[in-house]
């Protein structure tokens, strides 16, 4: 048995998180690699030729990628596992981000002249309570989950395609509320300071020694992100292989049939929405906490589409796929920039991509959008399983090597 990794003999091993010791080994290798990268080490991708290390701005992008992965897993729970298309992920991210910012952020005040007395008075522009991460992070998740709970009844009253529209409306309504509630959000174009990542007094946003090792703030945040991602990733994986996950898969494949088999649709759709929004809330709060500042205009339809792209490009209804997709999409701007700089034999291959906002055929942000859209279309047509599917195919090729079938 041990020599037949593809062979599944009983149900227990079919739903196991790691199907074989080989998988355990590679997971350990991956974790070691991530830790090495986080400590500033260099990994030889192709020994002697291509090295990879997280230096400079790459580290901050990696931090965002880790946090975005959490959000992508969340969207994958509702869209991938339960098959309910949600265009409203940006709304839940926003709820989490602003809850985190209000509870964990600093207050912004301004001296204004009171016209009736002529005295200077402090006026609060944006509220903030400066609580600890251990309070604001779960609170951000719970606030978003609560919103999910409120939306869920609409979701199980509506079937299929109509749900996509409702969640689309949710983004617009959320956007409006975020813009108008300026005492909480700072208002459009101004924004507010995000939640401070300090866990029981330990600051993730300041350089300092940890167990005698000097770490930059980005490195600390990176480890925070990876740790949370591993925990929440395993939670999602467990959810998927448990009773809930099987019920969700049944609903995705055919909801009426699932109902016939005794699965309460309303309850399970609600669970999917609540858990998904919890992940979104946590991701939203952390994403902007790493940047330090957030603005209400960010939580629009485009952000939702970005997360849908992560899930689709990564791989629908797989946890590892969501992570791959999130990493890919977060690094996309960097890759586009790198592509724009390539020249082959002195010829500027991607000369049509220009650095300046007006020159060239497309500028960098436009090229990113083109790639988002283009990749969604291409992956859906050519590889519906996403990067995860490509990975499975490569793996199977080498498993059967040298026999191709």
């Amino acid at each position, binding site marked *: 048995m041990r020599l037949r990794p593809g062979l599944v003999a009983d149900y227990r091993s079919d739903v196991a998180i790691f199907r074989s010791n080989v998988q355990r080994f590679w997971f350990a290798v991956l974790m070691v690699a991530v830790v090495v990268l986080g400590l500033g080490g260099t990994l030889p991708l192709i020994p002697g030729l291509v090295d990879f290390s997280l230096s400079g701005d790459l580290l901050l992008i990696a931090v965002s990628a880790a946090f975005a992965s959490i959000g992508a897993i969340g969207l994958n729970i509702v869209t991938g596992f339960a098959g309910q298309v949600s265009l409203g992920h940006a709304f839940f991210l926003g709820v989490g981000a602003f809850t985190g910012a209000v509870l964990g952020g600093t207050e912004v005040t301004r001296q204004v002249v009171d016209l009736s007395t002529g005295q200077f008075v402090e006026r609060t522009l944006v509220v903030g309570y400066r609580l600890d991460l251990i309070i604001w992070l779960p609170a951000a998740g719970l606030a978003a989950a609560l919103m999910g709970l409120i939306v869920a009844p*609409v979701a199980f009253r509506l079937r299929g*395609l109509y749900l996509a529209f*409702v969640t689309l409306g949710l983004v617009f309504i959320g956007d409006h509320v975020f813009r*108008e509630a300026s005492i909480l959000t700072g208002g459009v174009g101004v924004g507010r300071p995000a939640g401070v990542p300090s866990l029981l007094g330990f600051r993730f946003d300041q350089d300092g020694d940890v167990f005698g090792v000097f770490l930059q703030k980005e490195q600390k945040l990176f480890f925070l992100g990876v740790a949370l991602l591993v925990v929440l990733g395993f939670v999602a994986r467990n959810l998927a292989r448990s009773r809930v996950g099987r019920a969700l898969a049944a609903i995705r494949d055919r909801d009426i049939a699932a109902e016939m088999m005794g699965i309460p649709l309303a309850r399970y759709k609600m669970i999917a929405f609540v858990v998904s929004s919890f992940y979104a809330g946590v991701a939203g709060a952390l994403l902007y906490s790493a940047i330090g500042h957030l603005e209400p205009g960010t939580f629009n339809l485009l952000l939702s589409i970005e997360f849908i792209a992560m899930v689709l490009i990564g791989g629908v209804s797989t946890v590892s796929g969501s992570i791959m997709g999130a990493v890919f999409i977060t690094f996309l701007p960097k890759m586009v920039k790198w592509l724009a700089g390539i020249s082959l034999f002195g010829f500027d291959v991607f000369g049509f991509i220009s650095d300046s906002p007006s020159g060239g055929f497309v500028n960098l942000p436009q090229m990113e*959008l083109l790639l988002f*859209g*283009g*990749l969604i279309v291409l992956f859906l047509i050519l590889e519906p399983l996403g990067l995860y599917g490509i990975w499975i195919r490569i793996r199977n090729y080498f498993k059967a090597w040298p026999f191709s079938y």
Partner: protein
Amino acid sequence: MTQFLQALVNGVSLAGIYALVALGFVIIYKSMQVLNFAQPALLLLGGYWVLYFATIWDLPFGIAILIGAALAALTGVIVERTTLRPMVGKPVFAVAILTIGLNTVITVIALDLMGVETRQMGDPWGLKFVQFAGLNIAHRQIAVIVTVVLLVSLLLAFFKFSRMGLAMRATAFDQEVALTQGVSVSTVFAMSWAIAAVLAMFGGVFLGSGIGLDRSAAVVALKALPVVVVGGLDSIAGAIVGALMVAVAETLAATYQPQYATFLGKGFSQLVPYVVMFIVLLFRPYGLFGTKEIERV
């Protein structure tokens, strides 16, 4: 009273634009059960073709519209052939998300062609208006209403009397049976995309007339989606009734909300279509005129 009537007039002309975009949506949905989220992008691109020929080439506006319509139809057919055709038989959600991807791509291309500043349409109506019983009615508003009535009657006649229209109705009724009766379903698909793209182009032309076309047109076009939901995804009459309801509610909110309900915030009228959609869906999950889905397990 004048204020109310003025809001009503503005609402009806806005409804014309929504109806154009929504009709294209319904036609595509009826013929191939695809939610076409790319409609706003087709509107931008179509509007751009017309303004390109009307202002850069200085052609008469009618000819510019003809060329624009031809190009829009061509865009629709190309999009259908290259990206939607391989997805036939795939889950509806996958196809819906694919059109979101398409929308992103086409919008970038259209905006890139258009540039950052607002572009004049080169239309003959401009900002001129007539006064009637104390109401200001812009020439373009009259043009919208006349064009929509003309286009809708043309479309209905086309569906009712032409061979192609019959084929489209047959496909909408039952795709497989239509195939066995010798209807070329692939031509029907291409045709419905062409019609939808042309309708979206007219939407773009009227959105851009007078004030000019810019990126905000895509946001307006997106509001055709709640319109379709209010009317029901597969009902042509629903698209028109939905457009009227949503647009009139929106203009009424734009007129009265700043005075009477300031707590709802600036620009609340932009949200009204979505609010109307929520309310209608709560009571009628398939829209006002939508067919209730009957499924077999």
